[in-house]
């Protein structure tokens, strides 16, 4: 155990989680399908006026991304909690926050990244002009990791609970508000054709901030949940 360096522990854990995810490919598609379906429901609900759809498009995509992230969050620590490997991580010689970071990264790679790839398609469906699509993708690549990071704190707090899902959404959604606001605002600004540096800078700041702080809070929460 002591011979294992922190870097290799990190990569091992990441590899393990990615392998596990790859073995359950069918489950991987679910958040993505959910994302596409929720987005497709909105035009059906609000009518097919192209102007209206364009106006709500960025918001719809981001709210759907938020919900998809929320849906997939519960799986982040669930199986590790059930089979006891989470306790082994706690007992390891390495800082839990770094191991948590590996798990969050793995989670983002299998849930956040597909949303990023699917987004251009949905943007076309929602009449978002082509010029704004790169901005939409930028907000997604900056914003979805924040969702996973903040979400990991909530999951860590609720992992021991039998009906954690509903509580999880109550805990996490208010904290997602800043990401939602700045991301959708960036896309709307880009549609009008104004530079979006300010919004993207703030999103980057959120990413950096949560990258530093969230794993610490998650590690502390996991210790409490497992006590």
């Amino acid at each position: 155990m002591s011979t294992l360096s922190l870097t290799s522990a990190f990569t091992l854990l990441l590899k393990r989680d990615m392998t596990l995810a790859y073995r359950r490919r069918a489950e991987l598609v679910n958040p993505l399908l959910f994302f596409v379906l929720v987005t497709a429901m909105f035009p059906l609900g609000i009518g097919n006026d192209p102007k209206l759809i364009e106006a709500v498009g960025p918001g719809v995509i981001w709210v759907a991304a938020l919900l998809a992230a929320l849906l997939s969050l519960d799986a982040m620590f669930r199986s590790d909690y059930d089979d006891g490997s989470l306790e082994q991580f706690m007992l390891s010689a390495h800082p839990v926050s770094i191991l948590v970071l590996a798990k969050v990264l793995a989670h983002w790679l299998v849930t956040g990244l597909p949303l990023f790839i699917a987004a251009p398609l949905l943007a076309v469906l929602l009449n978002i002009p082509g010029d704004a699509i790169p901005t939409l993708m930028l907000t997604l690549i900056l914003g979805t990791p924040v969702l996973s990071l903040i979400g990991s704190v909530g999951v860590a707090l609720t992992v021991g609970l039998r009906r954690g899902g509903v509580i999880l959404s109550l805990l996490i959604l208010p904290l997602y508000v800043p990401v939602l606001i700045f991301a959708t605002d960036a896309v709307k600004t880009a549609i009008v054709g104004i530079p979006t540096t300010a919004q993207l800078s703030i999103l980057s700041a959120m990413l950096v901030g949560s990258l530093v702080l969230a794993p610490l809070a998650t590690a502390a929460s996991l210790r409490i949940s497992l006590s």
Partner: protein
Amino acid sequence: MIVRFFHQMGSPRYFYGVAGKLIPWFMVSFLITLVVGLYYGLFVAPPDYQQGESYRIMYIHVPAAWMSMFIYVVMAVSGLISLVWRIKMTEVIVISSATVGASFTFLALATGSLWGKPMWGTWWVWDARLTSELLLLFLYLGIIALHSAIEDKRVAARAVSILALVGVVNIPIIHYSVEWWNTLHQPASITKFGKPSMDMSMLIPLLTMAISFKLYYGAVVLMRARAEIVERERNSRWVQDLVEQEAK
């Protein structure tokens, strides 16, 4: 001396006794300031030159909104203390405050909405302050839900403490992002009355009401804390003695 004081306050039994002695004081001073504040606010203070009499709901609304934020900060600070020093009593304070805080937040939203109907012509606008107050209510509700979902109350208190801390880091971010979002999308069509321009005859009742609400919070949080202590320590000797005494 100070160390000894904190050590004693950390003991549930001692805290229970002290809180029991303090509650009547809080209650009496709350009632006095409430009566004085309401009297001066509702009868003595002059009507507003623009809003007439309906501005008087401010004497409930503004202190409630202040309390909603104050209590969250109290929760976060006691949460930090209970996580770092494992003091049982601050854990009790965290969770005893949550319901009171949520009630004040709801009160602020409800009175604001009642005021908004005649003044703005609508119950609700997605104004920056309103939205962040609503999100604050959700944060409170999340804390209450998490606490009730975890069966072991000591574990629950620590989980809630972390959540309160995460929330307190986020509240400024949420507040400013909402403000920014609002100023970009909706011009300030509603002019709020600025606080510095308020007349002393209106300001003093307002501050009295603010003190009154704080005293109320002090009384209620101590009551709830006592109830929580008795429930937690129900297997200990002194609580059983207490119950026997009460039964006589």
